[in-house]
């Protein structure tokens, strides 16, 4: 795991939509810093200038500022500008504008107490039927042996490989409690809620090995639900898929 | 409604209470009767709620004296109802 992916600031960004999120975060923090420093300077100046000392009397009359209403309106407008121009477009694209099915890699990720089960459809592109009744330590996804579509499915634990520059559509669900599938470097985070199969999509722009984490408290093993997110070139991904395919 | 009511005022009240009681009884029977007809879900819900709201407002207006209650009580109830609507509908609209 190369060290310079992570530091004290934002982690490296290898996601298609990541730069937009980082841009929003940076703009916000610059504005916040400006506001905070501006107000703090004013506060300190006021405290010094109007400190109690002999020969200095407080002034009863209060109305000598018209500026603040202007500042407040400005701040409000700036917030709504951010919301409309930045936040909403990113949010809608991440949550609604999915890539076309045929161009994307489809993967199922099923969280469980304390591991990520990854399920690829295999050659036929169809996910085999799964059922809670068959779920066990040998068959964590509960694949139905009798279903022909399940024959070629590929299942791994904590190992999510994706090809670079290819949109990936993940169907996220959970077997037991609420988990939260997050890949910090991809700026991806989505709660895995039992009883729901939640779609999310992303596209990796750089190859390498990164980490998956669980962001929602899911029990005493919550902290050790670490998964590996490996972005391969298209060829290497094909090879990996073949290697993992059931013989 | 202050505690002290004149003789005449109470007689008038009692007459109202008796009439409201009969109305509530009738509406109860009505709403049960309606349930035996197999309307579509939407119609059944609408009718049942309409009757329930009518009965509720009768109880509130006459038995709880809301008809003659002061502004401050109405204010609190109106505000509560506004938040009640959010509480009632938001969870069901989660996926919208």
């Amino acid at each position, binding site marked *: 795991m190369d060290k310079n992916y992570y530091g004290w600031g934002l982690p490296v960004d290898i996601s298609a939509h990541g730069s937009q999120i980082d841009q929003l975060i940076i703009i916000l923090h610059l504005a916040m810093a400006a506001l905070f420093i501006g107000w703090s300077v004013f506060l300190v100046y006021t405290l010094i200038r109007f400190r109690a000392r002999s020969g200095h009397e407080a002034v009863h009359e209060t109305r000598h500022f018209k500026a603040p209403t202007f500042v407040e309106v400005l701040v409000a407008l700036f917030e709504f500008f951010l919301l409309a121009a930045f936040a909403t477009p990113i949010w809608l694209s991440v949550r609604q504008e999915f890539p076309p099915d045929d161009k994307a890699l489809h993967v199922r990720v099923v969280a469980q107490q304390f591991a990520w089960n990854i399920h690829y459809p295999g050659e036929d592109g169809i996910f085999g039927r799964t059922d809670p009744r068959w779920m066990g330590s040998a068959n964590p996804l509960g694949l139905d042996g009798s279903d022909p579509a399940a024959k070629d499915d590929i299942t791994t634990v904590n190992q999510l490989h994706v090809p670079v520059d290819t949109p990936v559509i993940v169907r996220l669900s959970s077997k037991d409690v609420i988990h939260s599938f997050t890949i910090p470097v991809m700026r991806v985070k989505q709660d895995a809620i039992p009883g729901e199969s939640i779609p999310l999509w992303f596209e990796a722009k750089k190859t390498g090995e990164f980490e998956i984490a669980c962001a929602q408290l899911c029990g005493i093993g919550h902290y050790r639900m670490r998964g590996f997110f490996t972005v391969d070139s298209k060829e290497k991904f094909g090879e990996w898929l073949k290697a993992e395919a059931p013989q | 409604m202050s505690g002290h009511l004149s003789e005449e005022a109470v007689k008038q009240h009692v007459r109202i209470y008796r009439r409201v009681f009969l109305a509530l009884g009738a509406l109860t029977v009505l709403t049960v009767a309606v349930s035996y007809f197999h309307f579509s879900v939407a119609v059944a819900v609408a009718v049942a709620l309409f009757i329930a709201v009518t009965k509720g407002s009768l109880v509130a207006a006459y*038995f709880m004296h809301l008809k003659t209650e002061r502004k401050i009580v109405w204010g609190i109830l109106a505000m509560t109802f506004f938040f009640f609507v959010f509480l009632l*509908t938001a969870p069901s609209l989660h996926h919208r």
Partner: protein
Amino acid sequence: MSESASSIRYINRPHPVTGVTNAKLGIWCFLASEVMLFGALFSTYLLLRTGSASWPHGPATLNVPLATLNTLVLIFSSVTMVMSWASLATGNFRKYRLYLGLTALMGCVFLVVKGFEYGHKFEHHHFPAASTFYAIYFTLTGLHGLHVIGGIAVNLYFLFRGRVLWQRDPERLTNRIECAGLYWHFVDLVWIFLFPILYLL
């Protein structure tokens, strides 16, 4: 009660501006919070029903005639409650005790009928865990039942302890009975909405 500096005002006399006594404003605030309590449960009902594939039809699973009787019982107890207040307002302490006793009795009848209904359900192993329908049915009617028990307890307290306060300060007892009445009518109001939603739809 002397109006000296250190005694609390507007216990009996309504506040000149708001026009209500302390207790009345207090009970209405409490009922507002109860609206939100049952609101959350109705919100749960709405979500569970709209979210589930199949939801049992009320009349097919629950005993509607028995519940209809219960509704009438509760409505009648609302009437006797307000009559007990009206009797007090005209100074007729005897009629007040009669009506208040009737109200408490009707409350008990409601609970007994409810007991039969629950017993019948338990016999057929329809426990709360059976389905989300039975879960919300038992929780809603159960919490409502607890409120009925609370109301009966308050009414019984006034039935037996009312005379002491009646001698000392009749107006204060009248106000208290009005507040107890407001609570009781609210409990009846909740049932008026509960009945069609659970039993008829």
